[in-house]
């Protein structure tokens, strides 16, 4: 019985990419393997729910109180019936368990030839880097992957727990500080899909979303060339893009009103002299901005908490220059 059901599952596997009432469009080999199991459990659940409720409704109508002289049955159990209704669910549940475990192994073990993308989760954005091509994708840019090629995400967190969730692929995994967790997929359908953070991580948790774009192999190659060159932005434009992409906007205002957020407002800051928490003063110049990015908590401006994550090793020299130019331009 179990093997028959598993066989049925593999037979329907390739047809489950359309959206149903319950499930969003599936776009990967993993969605094709999970959806039949989901539909099986849904079918079993609906069948038993309707059955039990129909019996319940029938009893309530049929045995509703007629008069004060009603007599009721002295039945207080039936061993044969009780054994039957214990065993039937037990057998079905074993099927679910075995099928679910097989599917889980498939979801958890990436193929050997999977292309690797490194992922950093940080309050409140994702950063994806392609180690071989030297490309980094941040907030506001799309994560581009080729169709029909296994991709492995090797993930860790810079701060609290996050979770990588791509509903269209039916995959999810917690992202932890000081640990690597792995998730994989092989996209089977071109298009753009949502990425969510599924583990609560604070104020802007619901903004920690991203878009993944599945493209053809040729388009992917073309995109790689363009992304690696960085386009033809000026340093300040690059800085502005990074400022969004690295999540700086969540804590630093850049507008003229100098709104105080978690960190100091940056408008008109360049060139000022600021007092630090230890009473010393510092002039905001290129050197200070640079050290504030690499080791932000070594020189904290008075009135602010040491809350900024360090970006040591995360920015290339060109990107560092871009950030400095951008902050300089805020006046």
């Amino acid at each position, binding site marked *: 019985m179990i093997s028959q059901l598993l066989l049925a599952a593999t037979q329907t596997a390739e047809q489950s990419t359309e959206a149903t009432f*319950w*499930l*969003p469009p599936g776009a990967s080999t993993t969605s094709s*393997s999970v959806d039949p*199991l*989901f539909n099986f*459990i849904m079918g*079993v*659940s609906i069948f038993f729910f309707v059955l*039990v*409720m129909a019996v*319940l409704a029938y*009893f*309530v109508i049929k*045995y*509703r*109180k007629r008069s004060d002289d*009603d*007599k*009721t*049955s*002295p*039945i*207080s*159990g*039936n061993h044969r*019936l*009780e054994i039957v209704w214990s065993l039937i669910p*037990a057998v079905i*549940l074993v099927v*679910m*368990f075995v099928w*679910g*475990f*097989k599917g*889980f*192994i498939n979801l958890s073990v990436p193929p050997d030839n999977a292309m690797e993308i490194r992922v950093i989760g940080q309050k409140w954005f994702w950063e994806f880097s392609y180690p071989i091509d030297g490309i980094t994708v941040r907030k506001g840019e799309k994560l581009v992957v080729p169709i029909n090629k296994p991709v492995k995400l090797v993930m860790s967190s810079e701060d*609290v*727990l996050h*979770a990588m*969730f791509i*509903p269209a692929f*039916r*995959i*999810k995994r*917690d992202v*932890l*500080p*000081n640990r690597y*967790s792995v998730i994989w997929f092989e996209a089977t359908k071109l298009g753009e899909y949502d990425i969510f953070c*599924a*583990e*609560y991580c*604070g*104020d*802007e*948790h*619901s*903004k920690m*979303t991203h878009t993944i774009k599945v493209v053809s192999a040729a388009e992917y190659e073309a995109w790689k060339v363009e992304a690696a060159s960085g386009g033809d932005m000026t340093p300040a434009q690059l800085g502005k893009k990074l400022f969004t992409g690295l999540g700086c906007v969540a804590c630093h205002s850049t507008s003229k009103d100098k709104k105080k957020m978690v960190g100091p407002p940056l408008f008109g800051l360049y060139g000022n002299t600021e007092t630090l928490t230890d009473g010393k003063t510092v002039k905001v110049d290129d050197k200070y901005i640079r050290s504030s990015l690499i080791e932000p908590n070594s020189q904290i401006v008075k009135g602010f908490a040491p809350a900024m994550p360090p970006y040591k090793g995360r920015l290339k020299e060109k990107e560092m220059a871009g950030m400095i130019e951008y902050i300089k331009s805020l006046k």
Partner: protein
Amino acid sequence: MTTAAETIDPAEGNEPSYLSATKGLRSWLFTVDHKRIGIMYLVAVLLFFMVGGLLAIGIRIELATAPGDFVSAQTYNKLFTLHGAIMVFLVIIPAIPASLGNFILPLQLGAKDVAFPKLNLASFHIYVVGALFLLYAIVSGGLDTGWTFYTPYSTSTDTSVIAATTGAFILGFSSIFTGLNFIVTIHKMRAAGMTWTRMPLFIWSLYATSVIQILATPVLAITLLLLTMERWLGIGIFDASMGGDPVLFQHFFWFYSHPAVYIMILPGMGVISELVTTHSRKNIFGYRAIAYSSVAIALIGFLVWGHHMFVSGQSMIASAIFSFLTFGVAVPTAIKVFSWVATLYKGSIRLTTPMLYALAFLFLFTIGGLTGLFLGTLATDVHLHDTYFVVAHFHHTMMGGGLIAFIAGLHHWWPKMTGRLYSELWGKIAFVLVFVGFSVTFFAQFVAGTNGMPRRYHSYDSLSPAMRDLYEYWQSISSIGAYVLGVGMFIILFYLIHSLIRGKRSGPNPWGGKSLEWETASPPIEHNFHGHPICKHGPYDFDEIDHQGA
């Protein structure tokens, strides 16, 4: 045949009820009468239920539309955290055991009080102190960790985590005291003739619950203590950069909190066993199966905590074992549902307000149980974990199960506790609103969840337009359902208060119950019974049962 009239001698009826035996606020606050303590718990639980419910309405207003336009993200995070913490620690855990259980358990056993009346009072005082700590946490900066306090977020946020964990720590002792009291009372204070298999099933369920309370709650206490030390002294046990493990916290937390969901649901199952029998005039179908399955659920329930952590990175073998054991809880749960339905067979069913809630329990809890299968199954849990599907699932079990059973039991024993009847008409109107409102609220969340909407999202407009619109459609329906549910709840509050003032006298036994609590006056006298009651028959040996016709 024993009837109620035999044991209640009208000549002795002049003795005042527990409500009027002594007077003054002090006579309540320092009472050792289990009935008064139960009533004080009931008032506190209903008060916090209202607070938690209003917080939920705030959440629903925010989520009705995709942008975060009602409250700020920080405020929203505090709203759902406090909704969860208040509902779990201050409402559902004490709701049935500490309020209805405290009142009814000694009466059903034929005892004059619980085994340790002063410990019982201490339990209530501790509850109040714990609640004050939680309230202090709210006014001194709030709490935004979620009721689960996951590290390292809970060790790094600047909200009042220590005050809240201290509150939950203290509340745990209140729960332990009640559980200890019940276990000793059940073992030592049953009336003459009350064998273990003559105990009402409500008692069995409270027994199973008490075992969990005593064994699991200390683990929560230790966990919260470690969390407090982590925040305060930086000991590093959950801090990866100091060689600790943030996932360890989840293991500790769920080692308590999964058994705790059985603390929340088992007493409700006990209430349902009392109600489907009494209001259908039938003996329970499969007494032993129901009684022992409570104990089985309590024991297996200790070994399934890891099913909250299938995507956390715990080992695959651990996940497989936890998944298998989780299905092991599903079987006794299914047996209970089948037994309750079979109890109705050839009965004489009265669709009273408590019975309607009992039937609603069977409907809603069955949905809660079946949707649990999707989450116990490893491959499907990966997609559904931390989505609205989980939110809808546990509301079906905790509210559709636990709290609906509490409301059912409240209506069933209200005449016993107050001596008054409420309006059946308003009872039924409110029932329809509660049932329909609840079903709409959470059906919509199931659909949003299977379609991938994550939980704990303040806004959902920074995603693709197609999914945004789909989520908004179901979330707005869910909000409408919640408003209907809220109106139903307030109607219940109003007609219950009205019944205290204007309600008809109920007499000692309005439902024709056969367990011992119906053999004394309503409301009962201070010492429960005149003389010592003797248990001569099973709890469901109703007059209508046709023993000859078998």
